[in-house]
């Protein structure tokens, strides 16, 4: 039996959390993917799930978003969810405006209202003036930002980001990471991020859950309470290096 930390007790009360997973288990064809996953996320937090590729992190997201039912364990979510998958998944036949507004269209909001709302956000994600462009005309980073905005249109409460920058080159990636921090401070929503990139997790998160490989269990929970105002400075901090060493030992 692997040890896991009782994570819910870590927070005072535990009921202020916006997402709460308690002892979630999941198997696919008799292969155990998730074992006793307990996670709790407070409103306004940016929490990362860090683990090796293919360890079942995406399954956790699928359970949170309701795409896959869990075998056992309790799931509590307070709010609506926007789920951004690894690929940008923009529809090539819709222009950026229609792509971003898609969740609003599906909710049945009329054209004027949804265009007004999207236009308000487009400058924030740096896509102003690209409303009429098609996804094929945009760069990878721009498409990812459009996808991010579409996720936001689906829900302003909780965002699940599944390795959102994994397909980008390293320069674009670091730009997008800083951009995400800026977005987060502007929107003040709750973000749960999946990543296999230790540096990304250390740069972005308020807390990190470290997952083992299959079946995924929570090995450790790390709280990053330094350089909270300017997370960019973390890149130069010795604390970061120590944590990185600790994480590397765990993985």
């Amino acid at each position, binding site marked *: 039996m692997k040890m896991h930390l009782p994570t819910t007790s870590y927070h005072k009360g535990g009921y202020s959390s916006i997402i709460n997973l308690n002892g979630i288990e999941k198997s696919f064809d008799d292969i155990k993917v998730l074992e006793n996953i307990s996670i709790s996320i407070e409103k306004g937090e940016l929490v990362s799930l860090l683990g090796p590729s293919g360890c079942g992190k995406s399954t956790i997201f699928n359970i949170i*978003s309701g795409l896959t039912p869990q075998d056992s364990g309790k799931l509590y979510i307070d709010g609506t969810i926007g789920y951004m998958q690894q690929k940008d998944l923009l529809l090539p036949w819709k222009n950026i405006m229609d792509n971003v507004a898609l969740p609003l269209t599906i909710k049945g909001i009329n054209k004027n209202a949804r265009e007004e709302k999207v236009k308000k956000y487009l400058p924030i994600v740096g896509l102003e003036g690209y409303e009429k462009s098609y996804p094929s005309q945009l760069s990878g980073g721009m498409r990812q930002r459009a996808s991010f905005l579409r996720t936001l249109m689906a829900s302003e409460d909780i965002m699940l980001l599944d390795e959102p920058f994994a397909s980008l080159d390293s320069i674009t990636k670091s730009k997008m990471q800083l951009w995400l921090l800026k977005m987060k401070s502007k929107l003040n929503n709750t973000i749960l991020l999946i990543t296999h990139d230790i540096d990304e997790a250390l740069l972005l998160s308020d807390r990190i859950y470290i997952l083992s490989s299959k079946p995924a269990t929570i090995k450790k929970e790390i709280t990053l309470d330094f350089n909270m105002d300017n997370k960019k400075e973390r890149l130069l901090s010795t604390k970061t290096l120590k944590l990185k060493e600790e994480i590397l030992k765990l993985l």
Partner: protein
Amino acid sequence: MKKSTNIDKLYPVLSIITIIFLWQIIVDLNNIPKYILPSPKDIALALKDDFNLIMTHTKVTLYESFVGFIFSIILAFLLAILMDSFTIIKKSFYPLLVISQTIPTIAIAPIFIIWFGFGTLPKIIMVIMACFFPIVISLVDGLEKIDNDYLRLFKTMNASKLQTFYHLKLPYAIVHLLSGIKIAATYMIMTAVVSEWLGGEGGIGVYMVRAKNAYALDKVFASILVIMVVSILTIYIIDFLGNKLIHWKTKKKGV
């Protein structure tokens, strides 16, 4: 680059002109009779003399082709949507569709004539039989090939079945559908003409058979020429409309 593609287009034109020229010379030099092989000049004259009659017959053929074609598209859509929505329908009908393609058109056309007479109806049915298959198969395959991640995206957005179909499945399938429609467009006029050969009151196929029976080969060739031109125009128009429909696919990078 552009210049060379323009010159590339010139090569086939030159070879056609050469072939026609040689054809004319060979017929003239050897005094080949018109009922064996008419010269290009004879064909042109036959086309000019019989132009009005040929056009009247062509209209009938075009009518049969397009009515059949449009019905094929409508039927293909209905069946494809049903097959996509209910797996049991797909499992029941997909193999039948494939098997139906082994039925030779020429063999069943006379049966249809017995059943439906010498009018345009049996021809339209033949056109539907020929065109329906490539359209429905391309549509079903298109609906099936949608990336599962896209379907999950729509699920997380709580999209209804109809919304998923309208915003995702249909536009996705249209790209595949167009390849099926292009194949069907090449079949449709040919099928109408072949069905007309086997008996009918009007149409370019009927005209051809009558001309052939009178050994007026110049008129037969003239009608072949008309069929070729009509087919090329049809494919061109469908291609043009199709590209309009998927304009987003041809958009270039960099605004």
